[in-house]
């Protein structure tokens, strides 16, 4: 996966969603299904991805099944850029 996309995503998730920049986030750590990121933040993540990478995530796609980890998000972004 792209290190650059992953790093940007992690920076965003840590600082804007978790509000803890020192959080040790692994690429394969479940974020949504674990409850670390709640459903109210899903729209924020979609807007960030759209603005930063130009990839639109459809409202219905935004679920734990599709985007539970940084690695999955990166894969989706790369496939759609």
């Amino acid at each position, binding site marked *: 996966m792209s290190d650059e996309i992953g790093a940007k995503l992690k920076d965003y998730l840590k600082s804007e969603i978790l509000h803890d920049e020192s959080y040790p986030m692994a690429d394969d750590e479940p974020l949504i299904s674990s409850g670390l990121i*709640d459903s109210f933040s899903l729209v924020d993540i979609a807007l960030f991805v759209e603005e930063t990478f130009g990839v639109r995530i459809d409202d219905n796609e935004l679920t734990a099944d599709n985007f539970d980890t940084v690695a999955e998000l990166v894969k989706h972004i790369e496939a759609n850029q």
Partner: protein
Amino acid sequence: MARTLPGQLFTLATGAESAREALRLIYSDRDEIVLSRKEVYLAAQRTAEQLAALGVGAGDLVIIVQQDSLLLTASFFGAALLGAIPSIMPFASEKLHPDRYRNAMSALIKLSEPAVLATDPAVEDDARAILPEEGEGIHLPQILVLTPESVLGNSDEPRLDGTFDPDVVALLQHSSGTTGLQKGVALAHRAIFEQLDQYSKSLDFTTDDVIVSWLPLYHDMGLIAGFLMPLLTGARLVLMSPFDWVRAPHMLLQAITAQGGTLTWLPNFTYNFCAQKIRDENLEGVDLSSMRAFINCSEPIYDNSHRLFAERFEPYGAGIEKLATCYAMAETVFGVTQSKIGEPARVEWLDRKALREDLQAVPVEPDYENVESAVSSGKPIGGMNVRVLDPDRNPLPERRIGEIALNCSYMLTEYHRRPDATEEAFHEGWYLTGDMGYVADGEVFVLGRKKDLIIVGGKNVYPRDIEMLVSKVDGIHPGRVVAFGAPNVGAGTEDVAVIAEIDDFDMPDEEKSLLKANVRRKVAAGSDVAVRYVELVPRGWLVKTSSGKVSRSANRLKFLDEKGL
């Protein structure tokens, strides 16, 4: 004749306007479903037949765990048609390990002994997982899996007329968010109709109103305002799922536009959420001018949230004069107060020091140095008496802050199978709300909770539950943890903060980060919320009470002060 829920549904389904649209279900991923008054009734009757085949009769409890709003409607009224008692419960969300949900639900089932658990194919696994293990003295419900095909169809006529005693219990409404045993608020038919009559008057509600709602039906605001009021009065209801709405908040505004919506009820955070998270492109063609009011209810109300919303949506027809407020609770069926429709809710600017130290609401100018705003929830609705009590439960005059107590004829019958809780809730005939507030010129201002309840995005979170979870994290000492709510004006809700004392405060930063991460992971896995602030502090940081217990309120103030919140 005194009304009952199913009797009223029957009257509407067999009246002159039985073909009039009653319910429109909107989905993000499939075509909408539109049902007339008669069709709503028939879906319920078909469900009633399936429930009756399982032996369900009058007075039996039917627990409903379903995702599809069509089936929720059919199950709720299907049980009601038999004189059974429906209770809609949440299903587990997307979390993989909803242990907390499972434990709370199976405890509830053990206590309440439902005859049937009605579910649908989408959440059937969730529903089955909440059944307690078989054992002596444990009564397991039968399972009914409903599908749209099994409830839809028009080749029938209404038969069950719902005639029975209006003083029996019509439904159970469960309090949200506790890990402990939930309390089921038992409401009688008579109380529900008295509330609906009084509350509709305060809204100038008519059958021409169109209610648009995304609220979950297991919550009192969703069930009463966003479901029963329109369906039992004959006004139109446009309903969408909370799971769709949270991913696409513009759905609400588009539905209002398409259907000429007039009323919607929203928790405070929604105003920020809509103002900040809807793309401009999703607002193309949106017209909110048909709306009479967006009613802010069920969370502490922030003036800032209203201003953000009005700023963004005034060009679309939703200015500040359309942002009304309401104070409501399941125990009084729903509404306690309602601000006047068509006028901006009254905002007061108060001296914060007098507020916090003297428990007095002293008005000051908005530019006063130490100021805090409070938004009025309006005046009591008809038949509702409101008092503010001091700690000895004596009534206080206007502008003095105390616990809000209520008295009305549409109070709950009891907490289901919890005589202890029912008795505790009343003092000399007055229901003790646990909410703190004051009255000024007859208007009620709600300021917060007496106990340390945190409300995050409309969900109730109990600090003790969070503290117990954090205490289980390796490296954290039980008893040296405190959790509380910190205001988040930007999001229009509260955040959860956790402070924990650690022995080895000089440990490397990396270890501290890991410890903090483990605190977050533990709370995320074991509760419904994500923690925003995790602070590790050295021994002796936490303020204790005279009896040696960690004080939530004192540590909250210390933390807010240090963070400048």
